């Protein structure tokens, strides 16, 4: 271990911090100043980039309506009612329509297509041997009841295509009851 030894010098009677100590002090302060400036510029850059990110991110996510807004509440109620209506749409009647119409027909009847959407229109495309089968299917649809009330209104055979193996027909119906 090196002990601090006395070094009296008549040319330098009083001990004072040398030039090297002041040079170290100046260098240290310079390093601190540069580091401070660097940190400040990094902070400014970070703020700018955060602002940019916020601006870019805003359109992607929908704004939730502010609570306590009366008009928005009414809109939400309307939306809820609409969805409830949609959920209450009787899809079972549409599936049943194809079954019943097929059972009522003697002879060959093959269903090709069933279209039904929320507007209430039903299109059934099928393949039958003769015209009578198409009419019988349409009649079965007219007879389809739902709690005593006919399910379908305006049932008609829309198009018939005759070919040598049979005929392709389409039945168009409208759901009886509430308008869309």
């Amino acid at each position, binding site marked *: *271990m090196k*002990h*601090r*030894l*006395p*070094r*009296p*010098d*008549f*040319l*330098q*009677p*009083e*001990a*004072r911090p040398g030039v090297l100590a002041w040079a170290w002090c100046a260098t240290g302060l310079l390093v601190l100043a540069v580091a401070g400036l660097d940190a400040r510029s990094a902070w400014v850059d970070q703020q700018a980039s955060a602002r940019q990110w916020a601006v870019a991110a805003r359109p992607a996510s929908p704004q939730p309506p502010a609570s306590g807004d009366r008009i928005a509440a009414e809109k939400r109620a309307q939306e809820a009612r609409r969805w409830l209506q949609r959920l209450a749409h009787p899809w079972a009647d549409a599936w049943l329509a194809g079954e019943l119409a097929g059972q009522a027909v003697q002879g060959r009847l093959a269903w090709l297509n069933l279209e039904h959407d929320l507007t209430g229109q039903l299109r059934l495309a099928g393949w039958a041997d003769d015209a009578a089968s198409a009419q019988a299917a349409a009649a079965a649809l007219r007879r389809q009841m739902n709690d005593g009330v006919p399910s379908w209104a305006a049932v008609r055979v829309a198009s018939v295509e005759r070919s040598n193996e049979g005929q392709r027909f389409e039945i168009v119906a409208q759901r009886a009851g509430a308008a869309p």
Partner: protein
Amino acid sequence: MWLATTERPAWTNRLAAPHVLWMSPGGLRDFGPAPGWRPLAGARGAQAPAASDWHTNFDAWCQAHAGRSCKLVLSAWLLHELMLDKNLPLTDDTARLAYARNLLRHYHGEPAVHWPLAAWQAAGRHGVSALHATTLGALQTSAHRAGVLLRSVRPWWSLALAVALQQAPRLARADLGRLLVVDGTLVTQIDLARGQLTRLQQRQLPEPTQAALRATQQEQAEAYTCALGHGMQDEPPANDDSLRCLGSMQGRSPAALWCAPEPANRAFNA
């Protein structure tokens, strides 16, 4: 390539290693260039031939070695040593030097006003060395006349303490250590406690013999004692454990002012 000192360019002389000079009332001894790192390795072989020789005084040396730089090491005969009490309310070195000068003037009269003083400190203790034999102005004038650069003027005991701690590391570890820097009949006694300086004082021996040296230790506390210096008349006794002598203590001047550098391959010796 290098001719006599006076024919070298001035800047090489200035950049060359400073000579270490031992100054005592009996003359001045040149111990040669101070050891240390040399920027120009080739310059060492071409140094001035006289490694150590005697001159009558500093002025004579300056005339012989114009344009060099030097460091003065002062014998204890040229100095008065003062150790300041721990409890003195002196805040900085200026205050300490003023206090010391007052004290010296009280003891030694008016000439003490012009003595150069140097403050030193070690392990919280402060002291002042006073050069009474000459003034700095006289030294600087002789140096300036010959173009010699005076780099430092130090009392010998500070170098001797460093040398002793290197040669006897036990001195730094002992609870109570003591170094006797002997200069004929004047002994500078440095007390150490675990390597920290506790006391420094000058003592006079009745005669420059080993017996007288040992007699001074009788009435003091038991301590691990080392002695180095010169001016003794006899050799130390062979089987004496109370006082360890670092080197021969006979001669007109110290044998060496610094420890010789150890050879580089010492680690490989078994």
